[in-house]
């Protein structure tokens, strides 16, 4: 079983639209939406949720004010400034380390499970989808990404699937690292803007750091041909295969408004480019 993650560094370059389009082309595949902060893939997949799993991220401190003797040891020792001088917990700042509960001389502090969100396993018209929703202002999205990936792997193994396609988050930090560790290939979606090129270089370094082979898709390549050439040069110098060059096409947005992927929406030239790209990705994945 193979795994591929679609990432970008910069947000809004087209990760989810491309993942959704691949869904119409990939056979015997499980899908995973690892952008748990701002998950959008379900808007196209329209999943029927089969299983909901409560996700508890890091623990959180709670204080029993009746027991508290106001010694302020917890406030002094909290490295996250999560306990106010009047011994109130700032929930968004607590990282669940447990130091306050340990130092409290009257055992007024308990570390309790935090309801941080939900992981879901769903059926869709493209096959099984593993996805999640992080609750408002919760931490530990990296941990939730790992749960989504573990769920996807379990489904894939149980059902003898050949491939897991993972829609990744933007950035280069914890959730991105959790989304790409151990996969066979990353597809970096970029666009010919100076910002996106800068971000491509950084996210490529992350892929290198974890020794994962990257391939690149230049989305909206025709909005700035000079910059597209810069991306092509960069890829050549770094031995990165460019699997697709997609033109700017408003039908991608129209398909989204229609809750479809581009392959379902139109059989025009853009969709043909996606099919070509998918063939190249398959070749690289050896499936």
């Amino acid at each position: 079983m193979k795994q591929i993650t679609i990432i970008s560094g910069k947000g809004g370059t087209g990760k989810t639209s491309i993942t959704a389009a691949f869904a119409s082309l990939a056979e015997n595949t499980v899908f995973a939406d690892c952008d748990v902060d701002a998950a959008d893939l379900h808007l196209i997949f329209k999943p029927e949720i089969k299983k909901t799993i409560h996700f508890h991220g890091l623990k959180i401190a709670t204080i029993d004010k009746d027991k508290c003797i106001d010694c302020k040891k917890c406030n002094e020792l909290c490295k996250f400034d999560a306990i106010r001088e009047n011994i109130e917990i700032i929930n968004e700042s607590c990282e669940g380390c447990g130091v306050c509960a340990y130092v409290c001389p009257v055992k007024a502090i308990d570390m309790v499970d935090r309801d941080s969100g939900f992981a879901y396993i769903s059926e869709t018209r493209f096959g099984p989808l593993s996805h999640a929703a992080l609750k408002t202002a919760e931490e530990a999205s990296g941990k939730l990404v790992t749960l989504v990936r573990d769920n996807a792997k379990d489904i894939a193994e149980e059902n003898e699937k050949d491939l897991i396609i993972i829609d990744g988050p933007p950035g280069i930090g914890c959730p991105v690292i959790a989304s790409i560790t151990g996969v066979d290939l990353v597809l970096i979606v970029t666009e010919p803007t100076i910002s996106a090129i800068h971000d491509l270089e950084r996210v490529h370094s992350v892929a290198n750091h974890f020794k994962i082979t990257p391939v690149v898709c230049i989305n909206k390549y025709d909005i700035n041909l000079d910059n597209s050439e810069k991306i092509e040069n960069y890829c050549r110098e770094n031995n990165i295969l460019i699997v697709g060059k997609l033109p700017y096409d408003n039908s991608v947005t129209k398909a989204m408004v229609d809750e479809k992927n581009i392959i379902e929406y139109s059989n025009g030239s853009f969709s043909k480019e996606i099919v070509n790209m998918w063939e190249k990705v398959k070749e690289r994945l050896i499936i």
Partner: protein
Amino acid sequence: MIISVASGKGGTGKTTIATNLALSLDDAQFIDCDVEEPNANIFLKAKIDKSEDVTVSYPKIDKTKCDYCGKCSEFCAYNAIAVVPSNILVFPELCHSCGGCELVCPKKAVDWNERSIGKVEHGKRDGIDFCHGLLNVGEMQAVPVIKALKKNIDKSRNLIIDAPPGTSCPVIESINISDYCILVTEPTPFGLHDLKLAAEVVKHLKIPFGVIINRDGIGDNNVEFYCKNENIPILMKIPQSDLIASLYSKGIPYVEESIDFQKKFIELFEKINGLVNK
């Protein structure tokens, strides 16, 4: 006044709005809190004249004192310490520097090392005092770099914060001190869905906010309906435009090309000023 620019969905135009707004004011401070992928200086072009390391501490175990009792490993909520019968391993990139291992160690075998996870760079351009953070490649934790950035805030001045995308810890750390938050979105189903999530976050933090619709005209009208139903002010609409997209792709702020746009951003600032000081 502290104005942060956030979005939920990436690529909606946070950096565009934040940089053009800062350039339209005479004397602003600007902090780019997207330490994973900082792009603001592509547009602001501040000359970087100072750089400092952001370090975090992690435990250094004195193996002559350690008797491998395992208490530190048991206590650590982040699995950053593993103890086997005759050895102890520390995983610095998992450590949150809470200090718990030192507290629970009965042999006083825990001391601290510092390591760099990124840097903060400072620069100037005309009236703008600029700084941004850069998380090192392979590092997990953006929050300590954002915290280091926020130490540079001069409360006597107007401050524009460019936040990272998403809704979790790095976003909250970037915007929690704001007087006002601008949420930038695009008029598409993805834009609307992520706008709703971002709105939940700013409401939770009790920060007043309004919406800017970027690339107006590319999708549908549901963002507008949502804002009207929820009584969220729409601060500005920027039409889909090849010219704007082309300037963006080259790293050129459009207030530099158009006095009209500069006026619109000054009006935006005045509008927010009015809303905050109401």
